[in-house]
């Protein structure tokens, strides 16, 4: 039986694994894999947790009160809640340095997508122009992934940006705020299209609107931000659990892959992995090696392997990420109304803005804030906390935030390399500089979003829009791109390395272009495509 060694249990790794397991391959997956703790009181709603838990502050703020957001100049309003702290754990030997980039590394079982917000947006032909294949090759894989994970969505004005694929489930029930926004959009549609080139519709989200594959449908407990307790919301650890049911699957957790050894013909022979908390490394023999640890970690393994083989540390150019801008708003029609926490909590409304060429499309997700903590907003207001509490209490139902995403391109100089001159393990070094003219693009995007919100009856408080640091979106890509021709540090159409014959990369490292959309759905679909095309 042919064997495959996979590094990483994120969206790419688990969907690649599931595909090749079904083809009969013998699969070993090496992963740090910090596990998710069991859900607390899975049948309770968000409100019921506050009423019935013995120590609700411990759940919502954490044992060390790490969930309290104190004033701090660069700190964002919201981080991960304490219930998702396991995603922040970092193993030994992963030191790095970054310039112009704020990277986030996740080592959880299921990868960083354990804390994603579920947006599933297929790339279209314009966005795939630099890929060595078009939507025709990827479309069926989107359909297959949708069948596996469950994606809600429908055909509306956003379909002009997101191709329709198979196996979409009916949309979730809209929360009342989102419903109001879409109703207002319907009334003013022509002004949106003609004046702003802006389109609204339902976002496509990886959550079940009906029971599927032994998973329950969403019951609107309102606990999405704190970790769905019913598995209605998809995360890759669910697919990992599916893989574990195969007798030909071996999952080895607690190990951080460091590098692979190469023979004289530049074939990978062994994968070297260290215990996550440090110690003596172990080795795994390689027949075919598949890196799916995320663009940064896979690139690091690749760089360290070449460095150990040649004595020289190469540079990987073209690092990409989506710039994100957060635009908070107040819906004037909902001031003084009660908010309803028993609803789906992530984005339900999406916004697409046409600018320039089709691939430069700006993508935005609208989240109506219902169960997020309020003290981070209160502490940011320029008034005493009692007055702030009055304001937030009466504005709660009216609050929302638009997360605007911009595309990125591969540029020389935005690079990864290793610092090898220091003692100890080589350190990953990241350098990133935004594209020239980015400030103007951001300003224009914010202006358009503000105008669109104005037409929807919403007010954007002045001075509160926030440009997130590069690296915050965790949509890393571009360091080992797919290429039709054999270039240095590139991979083929089927994501096989042009440098190492038995090495495949199936994560975001292989993207030659990064559209403004969340990449996770395409990571899964591309992994399925590679498994089908090359195995």
């Amino acid at each position, binding site marked *: 039986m042919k064997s495959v060694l996979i590094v990483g249990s994120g969206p790419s790794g688990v969907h690649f694994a599931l595909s090749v397991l079904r083809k009969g391959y013998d699969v070993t997956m090496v992963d740090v894999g910090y596990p998710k703790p069991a859900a607390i009181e899975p049948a309770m709603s968000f409100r019921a947790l506050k009423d019935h838990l013995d120590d609700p502050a411990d759940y919502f703020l954490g044992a060390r*009160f790490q969930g309290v957001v104190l004033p701090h100049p660069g700190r964002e309003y919201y981080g991960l809640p304490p219930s998702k702290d396991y995603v922040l754990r970092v193993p030994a030997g992963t030191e790095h340095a970054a310039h112009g980039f704020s990277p986030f590394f996740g080592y959880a079982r299921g990868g960083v997508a354990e804390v994603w917000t579920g947006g599933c947006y297929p790339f279209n032909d314009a966005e795939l122009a630099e890929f060595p294949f078009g939507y025709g090759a990827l479309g069926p894989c989107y359909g297959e992934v949708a069948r596996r994970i469950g994606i809600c969505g429908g055909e509306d004005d956003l379909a002009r940006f997101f191709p329709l694929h198979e196996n979409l489930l009916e949309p979730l029930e809209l929360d009342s705020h989102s419903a109001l926004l879409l109703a207002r959009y319907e009334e003013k549609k022509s002004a949106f299209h003609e004046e702003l080139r802006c389109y609204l519709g339902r976002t496509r989200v990886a959550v079940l609107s009906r029971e599927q594959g032994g998973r329950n449908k969403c019951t609107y407990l309102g606990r999405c931000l704190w970790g769905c307790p019913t598995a209605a919301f998809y995360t890759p650890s669910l697919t990992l659990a599916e893989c574990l049911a195969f007798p030909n699957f071996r999952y080895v957790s607690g190990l951080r892959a460091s590098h692979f050894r190469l023979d004289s013909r530049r074939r990978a022979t062994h994968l070297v992995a260290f215990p996550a908390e440090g110690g003596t490394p172990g080795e795994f023999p390689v027949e075919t090696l598949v890196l799916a640890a995320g663009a940064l970690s896979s690139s690091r393994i690749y760089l360290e392997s070449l460095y150990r083989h040649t004595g020289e540390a190469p540079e990987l150019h073209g690092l990409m990420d989506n710039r994100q801008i957060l635009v908070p708003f107040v819906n004037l029609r909902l001031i*003084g109304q009660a908010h309803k926490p028993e609803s789906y909590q992530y984005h339900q409304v999406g916004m697409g803005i046409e600018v320039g060429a089709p691939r430069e499309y700006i993508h935005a997700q609208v989240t109506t804030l219902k169960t997020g903590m309020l003290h981070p907003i209160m502490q940011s207001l320029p008034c005493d906390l009692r007055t702030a509490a009055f304001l937030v209490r009466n504005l709660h139902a009216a609050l929302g935030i638009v997360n605007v995403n911009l595309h990125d391109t591969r540029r020389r100089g935005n690079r990864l390399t290793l610092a090898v001159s220091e003692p100890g393990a080589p350190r990953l070094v990241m350098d990133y500089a935004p594209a020239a003219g980015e400030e103007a693009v951001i300003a224009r995007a914010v202006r358009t979003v503000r105008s669109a919100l104005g037409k929807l009856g919403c007010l954007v408080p002045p001075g509160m829009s926030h440009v997130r640091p590069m690296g915050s979106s965790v949509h890393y890509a571009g360091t080992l791109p797919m290429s039709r021709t054999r270039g240095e540090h590139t991979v083929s159409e089927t994501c096989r390395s042009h440098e190492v014959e038995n090495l495949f990369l199936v994560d975001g490292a292989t993207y030659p272009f990064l559209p403004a959309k969340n990449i996770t759905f395409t990571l899964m679909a591309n992994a399925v495509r590679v498994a089908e095309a090359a195995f």
Partner: protein
Amino acid sequence: MTPATAASLERECDVFVRYLVRVRPDAYIQKKYAQAHSVSADYTANAAFDRLLIALASTAPLGASLADSYASLFARSSALRKKLILLMAILESCSPAHGFLDAPDRASVPGLCLRGAFRGAFFALRCLGSAVVLLPLQLVLGGSGGRRK
């Protein structure tokens, strides 16, 4: 934690919660407030002006109101603000039975606007009044986390 520190935190918590939500804190809120101080150094006042702000705020809800109004503009990272934010976070994590009202006020939108305008005006007055006394003291004593950023 010494008995004196525990008593001081208990008093702080009592006054601050009465200031923030106009009810007395129950044993659970008191326990969580003390616990946060025992596990994090964020809430320790190291600068002289920080200690002064806390002392003023701990006297009574009116003192807390004046000190918080001042700190909201001129000492946003002070230990007092951190303590008040901590209490807000604890209160909103718990059942309404613990005192935090998550529901909107019962009033029409014009009524809310009127209340908001009154609150804004009183806030401005409190800032003005407290700044007359506290701003020179802050300049002399220094510290306390600085102005709004």
